C-alpha cells in the first residue's frame, strides 16, 4: 500500500473512531490508565488491519514498508491518542526479535505483542553496567534443556505490565566483555523472577529493579547465537532510533504547537517570545528532517548504523530545548499551577531530562560520533 493512501485511510478511520480511541482520562492520567488505553488502541488498530501493515506476514502482519508504521505512530501522536513510550517497546524490540528468534517462536509470540495483548520489556542495564553495558554480570548457566539465570537488572521500563523480557546475560567468562553476552527472551511469570518498582522523579512507576533467582529459561528462547548477544543489542539500536524517533518527534511537534497556542492566547507576542519559539521550532524541524531521511533509508532496506547517533542527539536536544522554552514562556506555570495543562507541562519537562540518559547518554552518543563518524581515533 502506498504511504499517502495509507495515511489518508488511516486518518479517516481515526476520525471515525475518535470517540472510542480518545483516552478516557483527562490530563496525564495514571500509569495503569495509560497502559490500559494503550492496549485498547493497539488492539483496535490491529483488528482494523492498519496496525498490521509494515510487519511481515510471518508474525501476523500484512507486509508493506516500515514507513507505514512510522505513519501510524505519527498520526496517533499528533492526535494524542496513546502513550508513545509504551508503543516504543514494540518498535524497539519486535524487529530485532523477528531478526534473531527462531521463526516458529516469533510466529507464536510476536502477534500478541503487536496486538497490544502483551507488553514486553528490555532487560539490559544493571547497577554496575550502565553506559558500560558490556560489563554486565547477570549470569546464565547452561542446564538440561536451557539456561538458569541468576543476578539482577535495573531501570527495566514497563516490567510491571510485561509478559516477556529481552534479557542480556553473561554466558562467557566474567572478563569476556561483549564477546560473552547472550540474549534470551524470558517469560516474566517464570518462577524466580521478582521486581521492586522504582518511582521516577516525575512521579511515575516507569521502571523497576529486577531479581533473577535460579530462573529457568528453555533453550528455544535463545535470540541469535550463544555469546552473540552483543549483535542482538547492536541490532536494536537502529530500530530504537528510526521508527520510534519519528513517533516521538510527532509528539514533540504537537507539544510545540500546544505551546505556541498557549503563548499566543496569553498575548505574549513580543520579540523575545517569538525568538525563543522560533529557536525551539527550528531544531524540532531539523530533527524531523533528519529522521525523515532515516525512515527512507530503513524503508529502502539499507542497514542503519552509527549515523543514527546524529538523530539521537538532535531529538534529545530538541526535546530539552522545547520544554525549557515552555518553562520560560509560561512563567510560573510548571512551578505553581495545579491545573491539567500545567501538570502536563510539568510531567513533560521533567521527563525530558531522561532523554539524554536512556538509550545511550548524551556523552556516549558524542563519543560515537567522534570515533565513528569523525574518525578521530581512540580516546585517551
Amino acid at each position, binding site marked *: 500500500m502506498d*504511504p499517502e493512501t495509507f495515511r489518508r485511510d488511516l486518518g479517516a478511520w481515526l476520525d471515525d473512531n475518535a470517540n472510542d480511541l480518545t483516552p478516557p482520562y483527562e490530563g496525564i492520567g495514571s500509569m495503569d490508565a495509560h497502559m490500559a488505553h494503550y492496549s485498547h488502541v493497539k488492539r483496535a488498530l490491529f483488528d482494523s488491519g492498519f496496525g498490521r501493515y509494515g510487519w511481515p506476514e510471518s508474525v501476523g502482519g500484512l507486509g508493506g514498508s516500515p*514507513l507505514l508504521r*512510522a*505513519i501510524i505512530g*505519527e498520526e496517533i501522536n*499528533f492526535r494524542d491518542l496513546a502513550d508513545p513510550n509504551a508503543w516504543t517497546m514494540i518498535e524497539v524490540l519486535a524487529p530485532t526479535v523477528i531478526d534473531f528468534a527462531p521463526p516458529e517462536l516469533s510466529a507464536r509470540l510476536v502477534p500478541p505483542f503487536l496486538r497490544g495483548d502483551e507488553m514486553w520489556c528490555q532487560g539490559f542495564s544493571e547497577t554496575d553496567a550502565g553506559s558500560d553495558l558490556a560489563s554486565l554480570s547477570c549470569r546464565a548457566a547452561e542446564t538440561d534443556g536451557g539456561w538458569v539465570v541468576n543476578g539482577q537488572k535495573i531501570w527495566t521500563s514497563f516490567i510491571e505490565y510485561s509478559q516477556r523480557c529481552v534479557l542480556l546475560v553473561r554466558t562467557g567468562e566474567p572478563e569476556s566483555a561483549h564477546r560473552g553476552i547472550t540474549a534470551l527472551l524470558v517469560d516474566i511469570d517464570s518462577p524466580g523472577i521478582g521486581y521492586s518498582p522504582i518511582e521516577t522523579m516525575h512521579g511515575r512507576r516507569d521502571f523497576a529493579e529486577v531479581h533473577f533467582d535460579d530462573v529457568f529459561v528453555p533453550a528455544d528462547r535463545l535470540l541469535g547465537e550463544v555469546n552473540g548477544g552483543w549483535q542482538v543489542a547492536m541490532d536494536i539500536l537502529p530500530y530504537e532510533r528510526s521508527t520510534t524517533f*519519528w513517533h516521538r518527534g510527532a509528539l514533540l*511537534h504537537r507539544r*510545540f*504547537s500546544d505551546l*505556541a*497556542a498557549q*503563548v*499566543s*492566547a496569553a498575548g505574549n*507576542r513580543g*520579540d523575545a*517570545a*517569538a*525568538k*525563543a*519559539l*522560533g*529557536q525551539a*521550532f*527550528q*531544531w524540532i*524541524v*531539523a*530533527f*524531523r*528532517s*533528519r529522521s*525523515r*531521511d532515516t*525512515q*527512507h533509508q530503513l524503508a529502502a532496506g539499507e542497514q542503519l548504523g552509527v549515523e543514527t547517533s*546524529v538523530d539521537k*542527539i*538532535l531529538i534529545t*536536544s530538541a526535546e530539552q530545548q522545547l520544554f525549557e522554552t515552555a518553562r520560560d514562556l509560561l512563567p510560573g506555570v510548571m512551578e505553581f499551577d495545579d491545573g491539567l495543562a500545567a501538570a502536563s507541562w510539568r510531567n513533560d519537562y521533567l521527563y525530558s531530562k531522561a532523554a539524554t540518559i536512556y538509550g545511550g547518554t548524551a*556523552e556516549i*552518543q*558524542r*563519543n560515537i*560520533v*567522534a*570515533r565513528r*563518524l*569523525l574518525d*578521530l*581515533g*581512540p*580516546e*585517551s
Partner: protein
Amino acid sequence: MSQFIDADDLALLASSFEAATADAPGPSEADQALYDLGWAELLASAPGQGAATAFNALGATGSAASLLDDVVVNALGAEAALQSCCVFPAPHKAEAPGHLRGETVMVDGLLSARAETAVAAVLGMGTENGVGLFAVDAGLLHGPAVDGIDPGRAYRRVVVEIPAEALEPTAAEGSWESAVAAARVALAHQLLGGARWMLGEARQHAIDRAQFGRPVAQFQAIRHKLAESLVQIEGAASVAGACLHDPDPMLAALAKSLAGQAARTTATHAQQVLAGIGFTAEHRFHLWLKRMLVVDTLFGSASSIPAEIGHQLLASGQAPRLIQL
C-alpha cells in the same frame, strides 16, 4: 522547465566548481570562471540543485563569487547575466531594500562585488501592493567604499537615495517572497560548505597536534566539540536538502537559520580546537570565519529568522507540520 540531475553528474559539477572558484583571484574572475562552466544554464534548468552545488562549493573554497545575484534574478523570473546585479536586504533582514519617500527612493541594503562591474541592478521596493521590482542603473548605487570585515569584499553596505524617476518597472513574474526563499536556501548551502571546511580543518589539526604526549584528538573535550559541530551541520543540511522538493518559504527560512547556527557553533568550536595557530592571520581559518559572519547576516540571520518565524507561529497560534514522510 526544471530538470533533475543525477548524483554522479552533480559530484562532477561540484568538483569543477570548487576547482574554478579556488583558483580565481577575485570575485569577478570567479564569476567568469563559473559562467564559463555553464553556471547560468544550470541555474535556469535546475535552479535548486544548481544553487545547492555551486553554493556548497563557494562555502568549501571560501570564494567571494557573486552568484547570489544570479539566484535572486533567476527566482524573479529574469535571465541571470554577468551584467546584472541585485540589491539585497539590509543585514539580518529580508524586507525589500527600497522605500519610496515622495519623489525619492531610499535604498538601504547590501551589494555583492558584482555591482562594481554590472550595468543594471534589480531593486525590490515595498509598495501598497507588495514588493515591486524595478530596474535601475547600477552606477546610481555606488557609494563610499567600505571595507568591513569581509576578507574578499564579497559584500558591502549600500545606503543611498536615488530619484524615483530613475526606476523602471521590470516584467519579472517571480515574487519577492520566492526570491527570498531561493536566496536563503542557496546561502544555507554556502554556510554549510564553509562549516564543513572549518570542521575539517579542526579535525585534521586535532589529529596532527600532539600535547601531553598524545594527539589532542584523544581528549574528550575536543572530541565532543567536534561531534556537536557535525550534528548541527547534519541537522541543518537535511533541512536545506529538503528544500529541494518543497518550496515552502518557512522551510527555506529555517534552513538558513539552522545553517547559520551550525556555522556559528562550528566556528566557535573549530577556533578553540585550532587554538593559537587558528588565531593568526597566517592560518586561513579567519577568512572562513569572517565570510561566515557576513553570509549569516544576508537575508536574515540565525538570530533574526527565529523571531520572524516565531511571530508567524504566534499569529496563527499553531505550528505547521513541515517535512512529510
